[in-house]
């Protein structure tokens, strides 16, 4: 009797916590409907496998970082691949950047199990797609002509396309949110598509008719 009562109470509390967490994702200001929908569906379907996760909204050039329970941690503007497109060119991860053409500089869309790692410069980064050499890292302002810091600071998303495919994050945001959530262990990164249908990449997202 007591056991049953305890289990019921635990279920109610857990459910309430999930509702609160999901409500916080849904009501986050500055988050697109698509990003919010993917975040909610990732938790309710269990697709994030109880791991912290991030949603990369390419259309709006924004990153949203979530705890494993779906609670939004923070959001930030980001820089993305110069070219629009949702696929990586085969073998692009093996090519030096000097051999990557402008139209090949895409940030691939899809679900990626992220992992902490390092690049050849020894910098700690988060691998989004290790095979395609796509990572999430602190913004690099090494080439002044690219004006990466200015692009990040601007209010528009249209000028946030400059990288070779990597996701550039403000350094303070990376250290405060990305590294604690994804830089210590595996996580999930959902990169929303910009030229292909959402459900083509995320089957766990309910169809509009199901709402």
């Amino acid at each position, binding site marked *: 009797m007591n056991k049953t009562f305890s289990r019921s109470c635990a279920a109610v509390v857990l459910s309430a916590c999930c509702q609160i967490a999901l409500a916080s994702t849904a009501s986050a200001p500055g988050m697109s409907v698509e990003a919010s929908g993917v975040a909610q569906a990732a938790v309710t379907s269990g697709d994030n496998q109880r791991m912290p996760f991030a949603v990369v909204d390419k259309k709006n050039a924004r990153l949203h970082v979530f705890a494993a329970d779906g609670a939004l941690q923070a959001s930030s503007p980001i820089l993305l*691949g110069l070219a629009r497109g949702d696929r990586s060119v085969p073998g*692009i*991860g093996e090519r*030096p*950047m000097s051999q*990557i053409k402008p139209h090949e*500089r895409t940030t691939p869309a899809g679900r990626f199990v992220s*992992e*902490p*790692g*390092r*690049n*050849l410069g*020894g910098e700690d*980064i988060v*691998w989004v797609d*290790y095979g*395609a*050499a*796509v*990572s999430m*890292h602190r913004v*690099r302002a090494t080439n002044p002509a690219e004006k990466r810091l200015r692009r990040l600071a601007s209010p528009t998303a249209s000028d946030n396309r400059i*990288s*070779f*495919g*990597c996701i550039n994050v403000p350094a303070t945001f990376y250290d405060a949110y990305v590294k604690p959530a994804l830089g*210590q*262990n*595996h996580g999930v990164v959902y990169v929303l598509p910009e030229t292909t249908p959402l459900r083509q990449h995320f089957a766990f997202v309910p169809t509009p008719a199901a709402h």
Partner: protein
Amino acid sequence: MIKRTAPLLAALLLGTAGMAFAQGNPPTTASPNPATAAGQQTQQGTPMGTTGTPTGQSGGTMAAPSTGMGTTTTTTTTPMPAPAQPAMRPARADRN
């Protein structure tokens, strides 16, 4: 009455203790490796002059480490795996 039984009890206790002592295996001075005398090996069974602790199978022709004398055995504990931190893949260039 007590005076009579006291020596008997003492003798019985002494006998029991003696039995208990007799049950233990006496230390042996025999070498586990007949080719070397007992005085020419370290406590860990390694040849004299070798420093450090033997590393198991990689010891080549070294004698297996002794677990000590008598019937006492030691249990080896395997180190606990580190908490689930993924093995980091080799560093590589990213797409900036």
